[in-house]
């Protein structure tokens, strides 16, 4: 099995648990709530970042020497950094950069990966095999390393970094789109539609995309999380965001520089990153569970 095939077969979906009448309904409900709560967070956070200019938030670049490395107070809810800048403000404004960058990266991956995936799913075996080997090759290079290498070649900067991350994430989208397309291709109504003179584009629009949309959404959710981490990693190492722009990654970097003097500083950006990652993870899980709602039909095994 090539790496790509193995990725296909490793469901991001753990198989459904046995339907235990007692707790399954409760669990479903709770899980729905959890996924929903995660979605709320996932919407609220970017919203807060975008509306930062409108909200009563301080100027992120204003340096107040008296509160350098300050801990949370009524003035600075999340404290202040080593230059006296308000952390909450920096978090929100930095969040804009990070989240936008993540969306850009995912956008790149979708634009590159989905068409290639659909092509692989609908075209002949050779095309599929060649594409699979290409994706294999891409996936053989550790993701962050590849992003690094691309940035190394193109030069530092957020745009290049996100382009790199997007390329790195492309294979996953290619696989997902491919399996969606293949499933549809196997259906006989495709033959019927083709026979009826349906153009390939129409086929794509009306049949392939809706079928693959679920798994694609799940992948998008997970990928946003990955992209946020990747941006943070790259910016942490100075290869992403360049000063004076700030992002969550650069905030972690700066807090790392003062870590021995003040350990509080890494908390705000780290929590923000982790929370986003957790939220995207839970939302992805939630969507995936909603798709696989069938479940059941399993013979319960004997009790061990």
């Amino acid at each position, binding site marked *: 099995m090539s790496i790509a095939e193995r990725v296909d077969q490793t469901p991001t979906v753990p198989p459904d648990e*046995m339907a235990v009448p007692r707790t399954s309904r409760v*669990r479903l409900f709770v899980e729905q709530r959890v996924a929903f709560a995660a979605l709320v967070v996932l919407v609220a956070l970017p919203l807060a970042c975008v509306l930062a200019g409108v909200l009563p938030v301080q100027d992120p670049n204003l340096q107040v020497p008296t509160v350098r490395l300050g801990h949370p107070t009524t003035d600075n809810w999340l404290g202040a950094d080593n230059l006296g800048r308000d952390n909450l403000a920096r978090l929100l404004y930095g969040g804009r950069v990070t989240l936008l960058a993540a969306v850009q990266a995912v956008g790149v991956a979708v634009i590159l990966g989905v068409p290639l995936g659909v092509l692989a799913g609908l075209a002949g075996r050779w095309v599929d095999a060649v594409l699979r080997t290409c994706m294999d090759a891409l996936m053989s290079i550790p993701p962050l390393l590849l992003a690094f290498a691309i940035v190394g070649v193109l030069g530092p900067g957020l745009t290049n970094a996100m382009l790199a991350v997007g390329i790195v994430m492309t294979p996953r989208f290619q696989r997902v789109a491919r399996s969606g397309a293949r499933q549809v291709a196997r259906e006989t109504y495709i033959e019927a539609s083709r026979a009826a003179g349906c153009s390939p584009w129409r086929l794509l629009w009306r049949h392939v995309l809706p079928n693959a949309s679920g798994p694609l959404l799940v992948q998008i959710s997970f990928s946003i999380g990955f992209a946020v*981490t990747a941006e943070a990693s790259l910016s942490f190492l100075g290869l992403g965001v360049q000063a004076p722009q700030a992002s969550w990654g650069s905030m972690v970097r700066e807090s790392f520089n003062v870590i*021995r003097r003040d350990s509080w500083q890494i908390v705000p950006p780290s929590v923000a990153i*982790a929370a986003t990652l957790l939220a995207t*993870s839970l939302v992805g899980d939630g969507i995936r569970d909603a798709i696989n709602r069938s479940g059941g039909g399993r013979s319960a095994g004997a009790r061990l």
Partner: protein
Amino acid sequence: MRFIVQRLFSACGTLFLVSIAAFTLPELARGDAAAIIAGDDATPDVVERVRHNLGLDRPLFSRFFGFIADVGRGDLGVSIRVKPGATVTSMIADALPATASMLVVGLLFACLMALPLGVAAALRPGSVIDRMVSVFAALSQAVPPFVLALVLILWLSLGRGWFPAVGYVPLTDDVTQWASHIVLPALALAAAAGAELTRQTRGALVDVFEQDYIRTAIAKGLSKPVVIGRHALKGASSPIITVLGLQVARLIGGSIVVERIFGIAGLGSLAFDAVLKRDFVLIRGVVLVTAVLVIVVNLIVDVVDDRLNPKARA
């Protein structure tokens, strides 16, 4: 046997594509490579001489096959920026033990975490334990490696002083020192992988526990540890080691940041230095070597999988 040959063939194909990618990478760089290498104040003559020396004036194909031939001989070029004059191969060889240690110990941690938790959760799906394991796994996955690294340093190193915060001691020098230096980095690196492994283990085991042959094993009177350890885990081994193989790439990538934080001179640090100084030859070498590592690991995983779970081949 046929299977192994098939896989080898496929791996070679992948490797070939990777080498194309690795080769092409520096070509994408903006600016004239020779000029960059020669330095800012080199005269056009010098630049041309450098270009010729590096063979950069030969046509693309010829250079590519030259590259392949060199790689075949183990020659990955000479570093131009990070350590001018040193062969890339020697630099990678020096850096490899540290990263390899982190990887191996990290994977060990990941397995040590995933197996007990996965089994415990799978034995009682839907129970409190299962939910707790799920939550723990979700949280572990949500914390990026470098954040975890910082937290661990703060808490266990600067805080409690249990482990050193910086550096690496080779295994061959001093085992205890090696161990104490490797624990925190490996932990930081592997937590997320361990979480993913836990989920997959649980999922695979839940599936296996429902199979008829597990019921037979119980009906035969085999003890619970044997049923789980021998029959169930073997049945679940396929997806589990599959995920393990996929995690290796992720771990290597993560090592870049973790090594920076812990000040470890491994492959990750090397890659970082290379990128920072735009040492294309080194970048290319590191990319190639890590890709080979990943491909080889996945090949081994495939072979092991085939040995453990011989499948009917139609």
